[in-house]
């Protein structure tokens, strides 16, 4: 039985806190949604989901011990990861490095933003710094209908570190964060290898854990699932 899923987003362009509702319905029947109390929302999406849909919730996958250990090595001793790894979607128009190559993707193409919070201890003459480090991943199906993904870019931002330590914090991050692309790519490749023998008709992203039943809330900036239709 197909499922109609409706998502309501707090922000424009399908971002932020997200309410969702799944309605299973028979083929050829209406899917009813009587839910006037969706709060303050600024955009909405609807997707009709097939029975064969296969969903991969990215957050648990990315928080596997080997990936966490690899990410912690990226930071070395200069910063500490202080959160789990999160994975949300971000339309290209909101990616920080879009300005350097705007035509690389279309404005509403979705990238997966893989990110975590970090903390930097500083000497006594500076305040400690807290921020987040992000990598932007493009998932895709290739011409043979196989699943692939590549790391497209990175960013970081933080607060604190003043008045004298932001320069040295940037130096550490500017050497460590871009170098982490290779580490993350190899981790992605090892996970994608699990799907190497399978081919798919369609790839899309779903907010949250991609559940097909009930309703609830999530934040699409923080959690997204990969949905695949096996061939």
């Amino acid at each position, binding site marked *: 039985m197909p499922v109609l899923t409706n998502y309501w987003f707090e922000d424009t362009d399908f971002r932020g806190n997200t309410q969702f509702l799944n309605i299973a319905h028979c083929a050829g029947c209406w899917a009813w949604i009587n839910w006037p109390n969706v709060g303050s929302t600024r955009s909405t999406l609807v997707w009709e989901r097939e029975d064969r849909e296969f969903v991969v919730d990215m957050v648990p996958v990315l928080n596997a011990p080997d990936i966490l250990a690899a990410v912690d090595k990226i930071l070395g001793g200069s910063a500490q990861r202080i959160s789990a790894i999160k994975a949300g979607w971000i339309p290209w128009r909101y990616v*920080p490095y879009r300005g350097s190559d705007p035509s690389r993707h279309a404005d509403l193409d*979705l990238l997966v933003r893989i990110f975590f919070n970090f903390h930097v201890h500083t000497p006594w003459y500076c305040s400690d710094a807290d921020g987040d480090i992000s990598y932007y991943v493009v998932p*895709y199906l290739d011409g043979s209908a196989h699943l692939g993904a590549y790391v497209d870019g990175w960013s970081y931002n933080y607060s604190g570190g003043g008045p004298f330590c932001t320069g*040295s914090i940037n130096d550490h991050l500017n050497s460590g964060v871009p170098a982490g692309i290779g580490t993350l790519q190899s981790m992605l490749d090892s996970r994608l290898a699990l799907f190497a023998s399978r081919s798919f008709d*369609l*790839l899309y992203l779903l907010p949250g854990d991609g559940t097909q039943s009930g309703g609830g809330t999530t934040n699409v900036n923080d959690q997204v699932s990969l949905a695949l239709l096996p061939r």
Partner: protein
Amino acid sequence: MENAKRIEELARKIQQCLSEAGIKADVDLSAHEAVIHAKGDTEGQIFRVIAHITDREVTPADHGSVAREIARARLTTAVIRPTLAAQTATSFAAEPKYVASPSREQQSHSGTEGKKSE
């Protein structure tokens, strides 16, 4: 490189001046910055000395991307990508089949999303 050398020279001079004043200071050096710092007390009064030398303005954020050629090479192999653009996000998925009729044609030309098979 030249700046780094000058920054270090200046930092060492400041450290030496402090030393001559009886203040033992440490120096933290990087390619673009030096911080000369000391803490102590004189007759029960705590004092702190900090001197900062830098040749740049920094913002607490930065970003970058893989080389355009690498991205282009990857993207040429990508046939289907997640998008929120109002169009069919696939070339693999079977397209809905409609019986051609004037009303359907009309609908197609009036902006419904997706390609309809002939």
